[in-house]
């Protein structure tokens, strides 16, 4: 018996390794269930030999990309955490110091920045794909709801994260976001309770920091876990398994996706780094900045509608998607075969996209 086998045996007699493994893999790694009754070695072998669909193709890649980008966020975020100081004076100085003076700080910071943008884009694309392929049909309502809440929490992480560098852009964005979010009922009040009334003081930064680095990541991990619990119960939405086993097929594909994602992020970070502006001054007028792209549509509504209509419309826009599985009960066939619904969905997404682009250009 080799050394490692001895170690595994030692622990297997004392703790339920299967459950631990099942939990870890449920955080987004692979959906295949792990048998709790067999010895761990056999359970892993069974899981590895289970046929698995190929994720490395459009649009199934979106789910695994969300997880991979999230892991990149966790890793780079942890590295940034070592030197970041969450206070009004320390935030800007420490951010500049991380980028300028710490080894690879420039790339770590900018990979974190670009990974956030890509993560948000991927989760939005995933929602659109879920809508078009009607992944929310029974029994997979949970998939849609979790994807939607993932989108909300990732957007919230984006908001709290964009405040942290405390340069001119971050300060401007935090004020503008408060104006956008506050009029929306319930959400706005929660935002005010948890993050404060838009005053850029020490406690605001500290609260944003706690949300960004502790609370939201935990919630996102929890959502991944619940999503996988659901997948293990009801199965994946695309049933055509190609006979490839989890190992080596699935594992190597994921490995390649990780490598390529890293290379893409590294390239984006190197060529288009986030510019660091001068420290934010509260009484200065700033121009030329834009709100984060997910809020461009809401910003458009806020500036062009009365505050009452905006608050109601904003609330409905946030609330209705949660109930989509019960609103749209048409049979689960791809939307392309149902022109009327297809046009309505497309119009909805295109209008948001068009207005967002126009707002960005303006």
């Amino acid at each position, binding site marked *: 018996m080799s050394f490692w086998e001895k170690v595994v045996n030692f622990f297997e007699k004392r703790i339920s390794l299967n459950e631990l493994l099942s939990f870890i893999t449920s955080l987004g790694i692979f959906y295949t269930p792990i048998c709790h009754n067999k010895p761990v070695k056999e359970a892993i072998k069974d899981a590895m030999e289970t046929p698995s669909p190929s994720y490395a193709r459009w649009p199934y890649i979106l789910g695994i990309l969300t997880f991979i980008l999230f892991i990149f966020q966790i890793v780079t975020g942890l590295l940034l955490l070592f030197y970041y100081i969450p206070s009004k004076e320390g935030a800007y100085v420490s951010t500049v110091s991380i980028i300028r003076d710490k080894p690879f700080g*420039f790339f770590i910071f900018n990979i974190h920045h670009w990974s956030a943008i890509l993560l948000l884009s991927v989760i939005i694309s995933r929602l659109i794909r879920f809508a078009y392929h009607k992944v929310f049909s029974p029994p997979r309502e949970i998939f849609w709801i979790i994807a939607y809440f993932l989108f909300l929490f990732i957007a919230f992480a984006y908001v709290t994260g964009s405040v942290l560098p405390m340069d001119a852009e971050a300060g401007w964005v935090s004020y503008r976001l408060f104006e956008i979010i506050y009029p929306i009922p319930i959400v706005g009040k929660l935002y005010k309770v948890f993050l404060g009334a838009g005053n850029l003081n020490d406690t605001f930064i500290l609260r944003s920091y706690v949300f960004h680095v502790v609370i939201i990541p935990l919630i996102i991990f929890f959502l991944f876990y619940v999503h996988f619990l659901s997948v293990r119960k009801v199965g994946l939405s695309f049933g055509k398994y190609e006979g490839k086993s989890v190992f080596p097929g699935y594992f190597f594909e994921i490995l*390649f996706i990780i490598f390529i994602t890293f*290379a893409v992020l590294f390239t984006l970070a190197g060529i288009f780094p986030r510019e*660091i502006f001068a420290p934010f001054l509260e009484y200065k007028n700033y121009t030329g900045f834009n709100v984060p792209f997910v809020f461009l549509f809401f910003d458009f509504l806020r500036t062009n509608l009365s505050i009452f209509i905006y608050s109601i419309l904003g609330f409905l826009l946030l609330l209705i998607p949660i109930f989509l599985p019960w609103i749209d009960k048409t049979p689960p066939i791809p939307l392309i075969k149902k022109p009327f619904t297809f046009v309505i969905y497309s119009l909805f997404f295109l209008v948001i996209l068009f207005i967002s682009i126009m707002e960005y250009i303006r």
Partner: protein
Amino acid sequence: MIEFFILFSVILDSTGCFLCHSEIRAKYKLSIHYSESVSCSGCHGGNETVLDVKKAHLRDFRGRFTKRDIIEICSKCHSLAEKMAPYGIPFNQKELYMMSTHGKLLFKNKNVPVCSDCHGYHEIYKTQDKMSPVNKTKVSYLCGNCHKTQLENYTKSIHYALVKEGKKNSPTCVDCHGSHGAYPPGYRDIDKICGKCHEEARENFLESPHYRAFLEMGFKECETCHDNHKVEKVNINLWDDKCSSCHSQKEKGFKVKEEIKSLLIETENSYKFAWKWVSKIEKIPLETKDLAERLKEAKEGIINEKGILHTLNVEKIKEIINQYKGVYDDVAHEAINKYKLFQTRYLLIPALWFLIIVTIFVIQEYRKRISKS
């Protein structure tokens, strides 16, 4: 009960006047006279310690004053050295006023201002108090109530912009014309007034060929080029606008102007170029504190030395301006070098892609072997 309230309020205010004149109470309580215990009877006379209306208004009581009265009443205290000295307030204000243009017009013009027109009457604040109409930030508007054209011109000036920014050295109306002894300066006095702050410019101007020419031709000194109330921020167009109005293209003066102007444009371009690079690398962000400080120092230096332009001596100007231009060029050079050094990081990107492609290729081979076995 009512008597008790009356007594209480009298004790509180230490005067009975406000029982009837309650509208004045709030204003008066904000004034410097209230905090320095100048009572109503100090100016108006009468007896403020009695509660009977008739008795209170007996003696030497006067409710309304003429302009002449106001000067006499204020100077009752403000001309006394023993009363004013503790506060550091000059006690010759009445004499100054009587000698000023305002004082001379006192009996000829109804609109001429006296003490209360500028300082207020019941609500008189300290001059340093921002509520005071004679405070540095407000005094130009006060003068502008009558001198409207001058105010309009002044609000377009660099002096006004600097006062608004909070620069204490920047002049308002009273800094050039005086306050109590206000008078319009004669055309030979302008260099002295401007020279109070722009000393070097004045000295250089007196050395220059312009000084003698201006004397002979009867031009107003600084005002001819810079205007009086509407002193604009000096920019490069001033050379074209002002010089060309006297010098034709064939004259020597015109050539001198062209030389100085091109030198200034060159220097300004060097500054802009250096600043462009510094702000570019600052956004990455790279360390620019030293470079930005050097640029700032050189810019301040060149502004301080700009008085030398009034000599119109091309060699002298070149020598001084080139010192600062050299700093600009050095800073730009260093900033570009820093950026080039930073750009070497881009080599990491193809290196990483190469590494990843090779790794993927190796893993792919390994995967094939596993699949076969």
